[in-house]
C-alpha cells in the first residue's frame, strides 16, 4: 500500500484506526475458515459511521476492493481478505447507542458483540433472540452480513426477522440511513434485502434490532439416546406433531466427549451416542403443552433418560457446552471444517447417516452437532491444514455432502453464508437466470463490484454476466 495513502487514512482514522504493519496484518489472513487465507493490504478500524464513510470515500477514489469484518468468526470465508484489498474491521465500533424499552428496540454500532447486546437489555426483561453458537464473540454487524441463525432461531427466526433498520456506508462512502425502527418497511424493503448480503452491498455501521420479552418460564431438558438415528427420528416426529419448542439441538458422541473435556463441561453423559437438547419457553401452560408430548416422543424413540435443568445456572451450563462445541473440537485436531447444510426435517436420519458414510469413506473424523429442529446440519470434519492430502479429502467430502443434500431437496447453507466456501455450489441450486438476477441486484448496490468481490456468486456467472453486458 502506498505510503501517502496510508498517511491520508491515518489522518482520517488516527493511529488506532489503521493497521499497516505486515506482521500485524498477518493476523487478519483468515476468519473462522482457516483453510482459505490471504493477507490484506491494509486493515481499517473506524470508530464511527462518519469515519467509516470518509475512509470509504478515499478507497472509492483509489478503486481499492473492500472486505468487511466483524469478529472474524464466520465459517464460510465471508471475511477472507482479497488480494490487494482493504479489510474494514468493526472491533472499535462497540457502543450500544440506544435502548428503547417501551418500543422494544435497540440501536447499536455494528461491532457490538451479540451477547453484549443481550447483557445490556436483560435487566429490562428483554433479549436479542438470534444466538449463534459464537455469540460470545460474533458481532451484530457480522450477523447482519450473514443472516446468522442460532439454536433459538427455531422459534424466533434468523437475524433477518429481527433487524428493523440499518445505517449503511456504501461503496462510494455515501451514507444510506435506513434506521427508522419500524417493523413494516415502507416502499422497497432495502433493509430486508441487505441482511444476508455478505458484505457485497455495503457496510452496515449502525443497526436497529428488535428486542424480545424474556419469557416467563423456560424449561430445558436433555434427552439421552443410545444411537444417533433415534435422536434424529425424535426430532422428525416432533416436527410432524407440530410441536414448537424454542430449540431442538443434537450433539453426537464425539462432540459430547470434546465438550466434556473442556472448560464448558456441561454434564452431558459421555457414554451416550447422542443427546437431544430441548428447550421450551412461554407461560407455564404453554411450556407444559409443548414438553409433555415432546417427552413422550423422545421416550417412544428410545431415550434412556430425560434430565431437566433444575436452575438457571444448570440451563446456562447446558447451553455453554453446546455453544463451545466448535472450539472444543480443537482437542481432536488443529482445524475443523464446519459444514452447514439444511435438509428436510423428515430426512434427518438418512442425511446424517449419509454424511457419516461419506466421511468414513474418505477416512475423515466426523462429529455431528446441529440445529435439528431447523434441519440445519453441521457435519464437523476434523483435519490438519498442514496435511494437503487430508485437506483435499475434506473438500471432496464437503462437495459430496452438499450434492447429496441438494438432491434430497435441501439447501447449501443454514446460517454460515456462502462466502468463498460454497460459491461454486450455488449452481446446484440456482440456474443462470437466477444468478444473473442476483448479479443485477448486486450491481445496483455496488456498480464497480468492489465490495467483498469474489464471494457468494460463482465466478462463471459473474464473468458471463459481464460478457453479455459489455458489447452493448
Amino acid at each position: 500500500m502506498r505510503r501517502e495513502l496510508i498517511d491520508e487514512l491515518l489522518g482520517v482514522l488516527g493511529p488506532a484506526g489503521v493497521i499497516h504493519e505486515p506482521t500485524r496484518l498477518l493476523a487478519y489472513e483468515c476468519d473462522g475458515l482457516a483453510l482459505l487465507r490471504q493477507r490484506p493490504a491494509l486493515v481499517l478500524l473506524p470508530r464511527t459511521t462518519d469515519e467509516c464513510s470518509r475512509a470509504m470515500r478515499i478507497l472509492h477514489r483509489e478503486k481499492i476492493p473492500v472486505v468487511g469484518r466483524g469478529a472474524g468468526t464466520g465459517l464460510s470465508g465471508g471475511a477472507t481478505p482479497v488480494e490487494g484489498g482493504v479489510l474494514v474491521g468493526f472491533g472499535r465500533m462497540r457502543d450500544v447507542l440506544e435502548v428503547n424499552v417501551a418500543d422494544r428496540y435497540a440501536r447499536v454500532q455494528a461491532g457490538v458483540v451479540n451477547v453484549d447486546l443481550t447483557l445490556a437489555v436483560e435487566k429490562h426483561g428483554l433479549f436479542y433472540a438470534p444466538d449463534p453458537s459464537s455469540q460470545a464473540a460474533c458481532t451484530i454487524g457480522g450477523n447482519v452480513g450473514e443472516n446468522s441463525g442460532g439454536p433459538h432461531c427455531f422459534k424466533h427466526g434468523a437475524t433477518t426477522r429481527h433487524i428493523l433498520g440499518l445505517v449503511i456506508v456504501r461503496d462510494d462512502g455515501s451514507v444510506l440511513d435506513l434506521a427508522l425502527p419500524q417493523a413494516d418497511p415502507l416502499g422497497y424493503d432495502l433493509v430486508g434485502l441487505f441482511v444476508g448480503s455478505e458484505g457485497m452491498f455495503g457496510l452496515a455501521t449502525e443497526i436497529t434490532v428488535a428486542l424480545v420479552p424474556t419469557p416467563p418460564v423456560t424449561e430445558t431438558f436433555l434427552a439421552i439416546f443410545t444411537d444417533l438415528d433415534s435422536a434424529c427420528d425424535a426430532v422428525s416426529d416432533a416436527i410432524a406433531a407440530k410441536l414448537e419448542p424454542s430449540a431442538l439441538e443434537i450433539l453426537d458422541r464425539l462432540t459430547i466427549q470434546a465438550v466434556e473435556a473442556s472448560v464448558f463441561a456441561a454434564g452431558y453423559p459421555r457414554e451416550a451416542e447422542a443427546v437431544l437438547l430441548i428447550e421450551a419457553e412461554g407461560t407455564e401452560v404453554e411450556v407444559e403443552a409443548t414438553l409433555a408430548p415432546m417427552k413422550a416422543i423422545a421416550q417412544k424413540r428410545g431415550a434412556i433418560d430425560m434430565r431437566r435443568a433444575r436452575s438457571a445456572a444448570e440451563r446456562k451450563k447446558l447451553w455453554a457446552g453446546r455453544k463451545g462445541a466448535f472450539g472444543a473440537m480443537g482437542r481432536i485436531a488443529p482445524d475443523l471444517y464446519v459444514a452447514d447444510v439444511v435438509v428436510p426435517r423428515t430426512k434427518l436420519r438418512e442425511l446424517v447417516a449419509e454424511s457419516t458414510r461419506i466421511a468414513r469413506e474418505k477416512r475423515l473424523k466426523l462429529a455431528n452437532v446441529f440445529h435439528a429442529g431447523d434441519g440445519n446440519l453441521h457435519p464437523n470434519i476434523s483435519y490438519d491444514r498442514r496435511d494437503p492430502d487430508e485437506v483435499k479429502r475434506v473438500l471432496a467430502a464437503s462437495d459430496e455432502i452438499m450434492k447429496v443434500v441438494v438432491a434430497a431437496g435441501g439447501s447449501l447453507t443454514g446460517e454460515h453464508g456462502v462466502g468463498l466456501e460454497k460459491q461454486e455450489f450455488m449452481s446446484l441450486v440456482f440456474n443462470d437466470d437466477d444468478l444473473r438476477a442476483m448479479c443485477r441486484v448486486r450491481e445496483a448496490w455496488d456498480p464497480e463490484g468492489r465490495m467483498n468481490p469474489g464471494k457468494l456468486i460463482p465466478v462463471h456467472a459473474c464473468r458471463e454476466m459481464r460478457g453479455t453486458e459489455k458489447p452493448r
Partner: protein
Amino acid sequence: MKPLELVDYAKSLDCIHCGLCLRTCPTYQLTGAEPSSPRGRIYLMRAVAEGELAATDPQYREEMDFCLACRHCESVCPAGVRFGEMIETARAGLEKVQPRGIVARTARRIGFGTILRSRFWLSLMATSMRIGQRSGIARLMGKLGRPLVEMPEVPPKSERAPLPAHSPAVGPRKGEVAMLEGCAMRELYGRVNRATVEVLTHIGYDTRVPTKHVCCGALHAHNGEIEGARELARSTIEHFEREGSGPIIVNSAGCGAHMRAYGHLLAEDVAWRERAGRFAARVRDFSEFVAPELPADKKGSLDKDLGVLAYDDPCHLCHGQQIRSQPRTLLERSGAARVDLPDSESCCGSAGIYSLLRPDDSKAVFAKKAAAFRACGAETLVTANPGCHMQWESGLRREGVRARVLHVAEVIAAALRKSRAR
C-alpha cells in the same frame, strides 16, 4: 536459533481459531485489533514456528509485550489452549533473538538478577523508595519518579520486619503449614502477611516461614527470564522441603499460580521434575485453604468498620488457579456486607511489573475497573494479590475515589479479632 525453540508450536495447534477469547482479552478490548488478541497472538506464534514470520520482527515483540498475561482467555477457551504457558515461552524466545538496549538490559539484570534474589537489596530498595516518596525527591525526578509518586507509600521499616520462623497454633492444634512470605509482599504489605499468620494460627495451624527464602520467580517467568525462573524455582523447592511436607500457604495469587506450575517449568529437568511436581501439589492459596477450615458460626460483624465490600478476582487466582468461590465464602463468613463487582474477572492492569513497563496501557485497562467499582457502590475493595492491591490503591487515588483496599486475609483477621473481643 530454530523457530521451534522460540514458541510453543504444539500448543499453538490446539487453537482452532473460534474467537471466543476476543471479548475477554483486555488488550483487544482496548484496541479492537486482532493481533492484540489471544487468537491473533497465537496466529503470530504459529507463523514464527512455521517460518512465515521472523521472531526478530519488532511488531511481533510489541504484541507479545502488550499482553498482560492475565490468562482470562484460558477460562473461556473450549479447546483448552494453555495461553499463559505459551506467552511465557514466546517471551523467553524473544529474549534470545531480540537483544534489548543497554539501559533495559542493565535494568533487567539489576531487577531480576540482583534485587529480586536478595532480601538485603529488596529491603534497601524499599527504604530508598520510602525516602524518595517522603522527602519529595521522587516528585522532583519528574517522569522518572512518577511511578514512585503514584504508588502507595512504602511502609516504615518496622512494618517490613520478617515474620517469625515459627508461629504456634492458637487453641487446639490441627496441624502444621508452611507459608510463603514473598518478595514484594513483605516489603509492601507486611500487614497482609501478619494477618495471614494470625488467621492460620487461629484456625489451629502451626505456621512455619522459611525466612531465608526470597522470591518464587513468577516475575521472571512472566517476563521471559526463564532460566532465572528455573533457578529460583529450585531454590524455592529446597527452602520449602526443609519446612516439612504439609501444605504451603500462599497469599499472593501470582506466586501461587506460578508455584503450582513448577512441574511444567522444570519438566525437562530430569533431576528436579519429580520434586517440582511434589512441591506443586502442596501449594494452596490462602482462601482455598482457610475457607473449609473456618467454621460458619464464627461470624463477626464488620459492617461498621469496613462498610460494603466488593471482591475483585485476581486473574491468577480465578483464571490461573480456578479459585472463585472460596474468597467469597470467607467474606460472607466475616459478616461484612458485600456487593458484586461487575466484570470482577477482568484484569486490573497490574499484571506483575506490567504497570511499570507500560504505565499508559496499564492505566487504560484500569479505567474500566474504576468505573465498575464506582457503579457497584462498595466502600472497600478486597483483593488477594500484592500487584492488584497496589494497582487498586494507586488507581483509585488517581481517579479520586475514596476507598480502602484490603487483602482477604486482612478482612478475616479483623473479623476474628472482633469476635474474640466480644
